[in-house]
């Protein structure tokens, strides 16, 4: 869903080719409808001969019903007309001729044709209604998601705003606390919440940009060490008091990636580790190269992620516990979108001795020696 907008558009040269394919598919449905008529007529012929017309009509109409249900409106009309004609040809005297001997059989032919048409129309109506119901269902689902999202986001935005409004209006009121300590606490609270609001809005905007398909990745070969260093510098304040162990081997090859986006992935993972683990627990960050890619890992000593939630945590607006951490449940969704856009993958697993390991890969270009080996 996220990535659809970025999937490569077909080359202009491919369009006529696709059109031919679509035309072939349509033709195939008409041929199939004709074959179904041939099959039902043949079955009726061999089973009943020209004996009992009522049984023959049942079998032939069964063919029309089948064609109507499976091949769409046009082919079903073809099946209706064809089966009426074959019925007349094979089963109404004079046999093997399109002439009709008596008035009674003209009526039989007419009724047969009418019923076949009715079946085609009814099948089409059922199809239309099913489609309408499906769309209505989808719409309702989207609406429900949208309102859930709206209430979740407005709650998340209102909380910091309420604190900021409360703290600053207290400072402004004639009854503002005289005590310097209390004034400072109010201001610090307002400042902290403003920073939180900034992070929330940043994630919301980033998500909106990703969804709008505006994600243009600018891949450049570069050392991972740089972007790791800069991401750590960004979250420095929030990691204070923790042991952060960084292991990046000197011989790590250059990796082609968009530095701004991959920095965002690292910042989100580090901020999550800071938010969801005890204040002084350690965080480890490492990178290791294998044959085709580099795996970057951010691991913590927090409560970990329960096994059944390890996919869900990457879903949009999903949070393990509402209200905890003060985010909107977009950080990991953004990470996944960015990593996928680079052709890598991201997942979470548990850690020996407790904690969570968040890992993501970035593909390595084929090494130059391999590329030039004949």
């Amino acid at each position: 869903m996220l990535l659809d907008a970025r999937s490569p558009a077909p080359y202009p040269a491919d369009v006529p080719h696709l059109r031919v394919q679509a035309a072939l598919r349509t033709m195939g449905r008409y041929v199939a409808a004709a074959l179904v008529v041939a099959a039902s007529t043949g079955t009726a012929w061999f089973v009943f001969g020209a004996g009992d017309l009522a049984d023959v009509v049942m079998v032939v109409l069964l063919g029309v019903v089948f064609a109507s249900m499976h091949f769409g409106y046009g082919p079903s009309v073809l099946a209706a007309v064809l089966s009426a004609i074959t019925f007349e040809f094979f089963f109404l005297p004079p046999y093997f001729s399109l002439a009709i001997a008596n008035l009674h059989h003209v009526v039989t032919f007419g009724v047969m044709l009418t019923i076949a048409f009715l079946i085609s129309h009814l099948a089409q109506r059922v199809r239309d209604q099913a489609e309408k119901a499906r769309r209505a269902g989808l719409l309702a689902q989207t609406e429900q998601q949208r309102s859930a999202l709206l209430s979740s986001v407005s709650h998340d935005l209102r909380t910091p705003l309420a604190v900021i409004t409360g703290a600053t209006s207290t400072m402004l009121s004639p009854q503002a606390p005289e005590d310097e300590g209390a004034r400072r606490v109010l201001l610090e609270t307002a400042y902290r919440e403003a920073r939180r609001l900034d992070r929330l809005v940043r994630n919301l905007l980033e998500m909106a940009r990703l969804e709008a398909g505006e994600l243009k990745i600018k891949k450049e070969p570069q050392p991972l060490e740089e972007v790791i260093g800069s991401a750590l510098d960004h979250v420095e304040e929030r990691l204070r008091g923790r042991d952060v162990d960084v292991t990046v081997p000197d011989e790590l090859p250059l990796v082609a990636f968009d530095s701004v986006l991959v920095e965002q992935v690292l910042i989100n993972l580090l901020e999550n580790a800071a938010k969801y683990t005890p204040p002084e627990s350690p965080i480890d960050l490492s990178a290791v190269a294998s044959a085709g890619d580099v795996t970057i890992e951010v691991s913590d000593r927090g409560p970990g992620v329960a096994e059944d939630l390890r996919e869900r945590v990457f879903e949009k607006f999903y949070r393990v516990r509402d209200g905890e951490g003060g985010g909107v449940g977009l950080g990991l969704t953004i990470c996944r979108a960015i990593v996928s856009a680079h052709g890598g993958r991201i997942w979470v697993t548990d850690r020996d001795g407790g904690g969570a390991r968040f890992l993501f890969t970035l593909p390595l270009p084929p090494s130059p020696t391999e590329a030039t080996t004949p």
Partner: protein
Amino acid sequence: MTEAPVVLVVEDEADMRTFARIALAAHGYRAIEATTAAEGIRLAAKHRPDIVLLDLGLPDADGSEVTRRIREWSTMPILIISARGSEPAKVKALDEGADDYMTKPFGAAEMMARIRVALRNAARRSGAEPMGVVQLGEDVRVDLPRHAVTVRGQPVHLTPIEFKLLATLIQRAGMVLTHHDLLEAVWGPGHEDETQYLRVYMTHLRHKIERKPARPRYLMTEVGIGYRLRLEPQ
């Protein structure tokens, strides 16, 4: 300083101007305010401020245009104020000659620190007195005239390019240098797009100077923009 330094604030948001004016006054600076690019260019020429704070999102023209126009006649320091996620616009303004940037939202402390660094660099530039020995934190000592570097007391050998890179960053210590700026200064015109070279040399330099190259204290990466040398680790 005997006279209060003058800061031209070019910003269309009234509340941002109020914040800047009050914070600047509290630190002994005098603010002049402009709300459009045209007014900014006019006031820069009229008042010859010591430094310009320039918002990139002005209603009438973009900030790099203002930078270009001011750079036609002046080297006064220009500090860009921009929103997050607009790296290309920042890089454009920096390459037009702006000196540094701040990303909104920022606090008064960050703003004052950036202004001080820019003013210090400008003062040194105009004095044209060559820099002698520069100390980075407690770890690194760079003797610019002698091309000698010691890291935690040990002499360290830098290749000529590594040294030139370090010296270029030191000349503008505390301020951002775009990839383009560094490539032009170190490798010369015509090499501005060879960012990969620059990254490899920066990595070498970082490994020779930093205790933990993946958590640098001095040679900072500004992702998507360039590099910044910190004189004092934070």
